[in-house]
């Protein structure tokens, strides 16, 4: 088959065709059937990644806009409110429909789900729904609820805004989680407004995540560049030792390294004790559970990811050019800046973007050494998944993080490939 590529770019085999019929087997002995056979070899890995990761992420993206709770939990109410224009009080039929829906939901155990969903719309609606639902179910008359019945159970049923909010969130898709993830919300009249200052959380969270990632990246570059330069220009007999000193932290798990920083930085940690013992300080320096600790530990964890690609590029920079520039009269600093640094740009680009991408998604290190105001987006994604059970919001935050990472990765692809790093 003419499309079959000879592996490894070697010249076509001059092997007698009886041993290696062209196209049916490669020279090295695997994969009959050309492209189809080669595809077959990749298939198991592709399938595993599709099932193990791509499908889960697809579902995750869908979850950030999915809104099944109200549409399926309060079907009668949603049907009635669909004909209502959203101003003033809803028709009386809405009250009896809601009474019926909540009674059914309480009976089938779905009340909590509806209550939790409506609580995201407005805090306090959880108790509103739970109380109304359980009392209606306990009443047990089966008679249609009148507006007066519901208002007697909770005065909020007499307010148009309650009904307007339920109507707004009755679609099977919602943008509410994305709005919430950007500190926005839909007002009862349909406008998009900014949430109260006291409840704003996420814009500053994204800003903080970007700021920490950027600071760590700049620190890694500023520290890593000279180190990579020294390693690349050191005599060859030193190279294995110097590289080992970079590779040991690279291979040591993030968790272990973050733990080591706790031992060093905490209030009664090694650094404070040592400084006290030396008589340099009296109390304790605030080194732990703050931004300083996060920056130090994350720089420590990510520095090898900067140094290794820089070293890889610097190793290939011929020294002749810098020497030539010096011989032509450039002072050493100028020769370095104008001739050497430009040749290392691919390494700078690869290291910078790699560190930045990794920093954006960091969880373990800030969670262990940072304070409450140093947590990054990943922390809140985990929090809303495990504790607040606001899965839609967790998914919206995650999708935004994923998009940010994807944009950076696209930029990464333009400058250098991942393979240049490893």
């Amino acid at each position, binding site marked *: 088959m003419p499309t079959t*590529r000879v592996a490894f770019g070697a010249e076509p085999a001059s092997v007698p065709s009886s*041993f290696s019929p062209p196209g049916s087997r490669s020279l*090295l002995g695997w994969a009959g059937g050309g492209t189809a056979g080669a595809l077959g070899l*990749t298939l198991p890995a592709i399938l595993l990644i599709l099932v193990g*990761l791509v499908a889960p*992420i697809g579902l995750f993206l869908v979850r950030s806009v999915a809104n099944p709770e109200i549409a399926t939990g309060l079907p009668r109410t949603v049907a009635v409110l669909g004909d209502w224009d959203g101003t003033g009080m809803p028709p009386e039929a809405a009250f009896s429909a809601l009474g019926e829906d909540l009674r059914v939901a309480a009976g089938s155990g779905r009340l909590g789900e509806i209550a939790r969903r409506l609580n995201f719309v407005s805090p306090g609606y959880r108790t509103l729904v739970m109380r109304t639902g359980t009392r209606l179910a306990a009443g047990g008359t089966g008679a249609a609820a009148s507006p007066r019945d519901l208002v007697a159970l909770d005065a909020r049923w007499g307010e148009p805004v309650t009904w307007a909010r339920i109507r707004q969130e009755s679609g099977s898709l919602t943008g509410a989680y994305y709005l919430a993830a950007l500190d926005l919300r839909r007002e009862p009249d349909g406008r998009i407004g900014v949430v109260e200052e006291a409840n704003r959380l996420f814009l500053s969270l994204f800003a903080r995540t970007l700021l920490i990632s950027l600071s760590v990246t700049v620190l890694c570059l500023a520290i890593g560049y000279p180190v990579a*330069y020294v390693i690349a220009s050191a005599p060859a007999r030193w190279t294995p030792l110097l590289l080992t000193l970079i590779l040991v932290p690279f291979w*040591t798990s993030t968790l*272990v390294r973050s733990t080591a920083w706790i031992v060093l930085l905490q209030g009664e940690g*090694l650094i404070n004790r040592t400084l006290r013992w030396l008589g340099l300080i009296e109390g304790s320096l605030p080194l732990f559970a703050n931004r300083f600790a996060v920056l130090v530990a994350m720089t420590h964890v990510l520095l090898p990811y900067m140094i290794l690609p820089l070293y890889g590029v610097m190793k290939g920079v011929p020294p002749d050019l810098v020497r030539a520039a010096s011989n032509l009269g450039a002072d050493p600093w100028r020769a370095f800046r104008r001739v050497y640094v430009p040749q290392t740009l691919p390494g700078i680009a690869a290291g910078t973007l790699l560190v930045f991408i990794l920093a954006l998604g960091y969880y373990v290190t800030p969670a262990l050494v940072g304070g409450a105001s140093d947590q990054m987006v990943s922390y809140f994604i985990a929090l809303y998944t495990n504790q607040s059970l606001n899965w839609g919001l967790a998914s919206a935050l995650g999708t935004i993080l994923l998009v940010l990472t994807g944009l950076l990765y696209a930029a990464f692809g333009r400058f250098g490939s991942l393979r240049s790093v490893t």
Partner: protein
Amino acid sequence: MRPDAVFDAGALAVRVFAVAVLGFLVLPILVIVPLSFTAGVELVYPVPGFSLRWYDDFLTRPEWLLSIENSLIVGIGTAILSTALGTLAALGLSRLPPRLGALLSGLMILPMVVPVVIIGVACFFFYAWLGIVGSYAGLILAHTTMAIPFVLIAVRSALAGLSPDYARAAAGLGAPPHRVFVRVTVPLLMPGILSGALFGFAVSFDDVVVAMFLSGPQQITLPRQMFNGVRENISPTILAAATIMVVFSLLLMSATNALAARSRRMRAA
């Protein structure tokens, strides 16, 4: 002063700085090792006396033993599965038309760039639906997707450095293609395949976050168990666990380096 002298002084300063940074990289890891051998309870220098009591504690507590066992089960499972699939994929990719190959390898590299929390949360929801949250199968599946890119890169770089001469010679001597593959090509690729397996194990052995979402009480891995402990209070037992993890990572690193050296020798031969 001559400009050269200024530059020499500068070069010396850069070297001193580099040594300081190398210290910054390595010392925090080394500093916890002696503390794990303390005879006391506090994490202080000078260490009040050395003992193995915390290692004894570590190796006799059922929750730590279970976590070691779990880490080995999940790590070895991940290494085997990711190496098998990653090696096949690397062989296949090398024979695909460049565009298709780039597309598929892009897909297979994907797990490397997705933030790990998103992998954890996304897998949690989907695997819950499949019914494999809180099982070894779920953890191994997630870890394998994360490990495949590393295996792929290791085997592809071994493939890239493979000279076709040996295979050609074997074929010239009359070996049928499948035998050339099994007896010549695979042994030549073996260092790359094995270091892929080590990477696969290391990916699994390092993971805290995905395990946090996918492991039930019976699948708590060593890093996960350690993370729980670190959040409460760092005891010398935790540092014993950390030291064992460091030793393990160093073994993995040395093995990978030895394999790389071996494949360089094989290529030079």
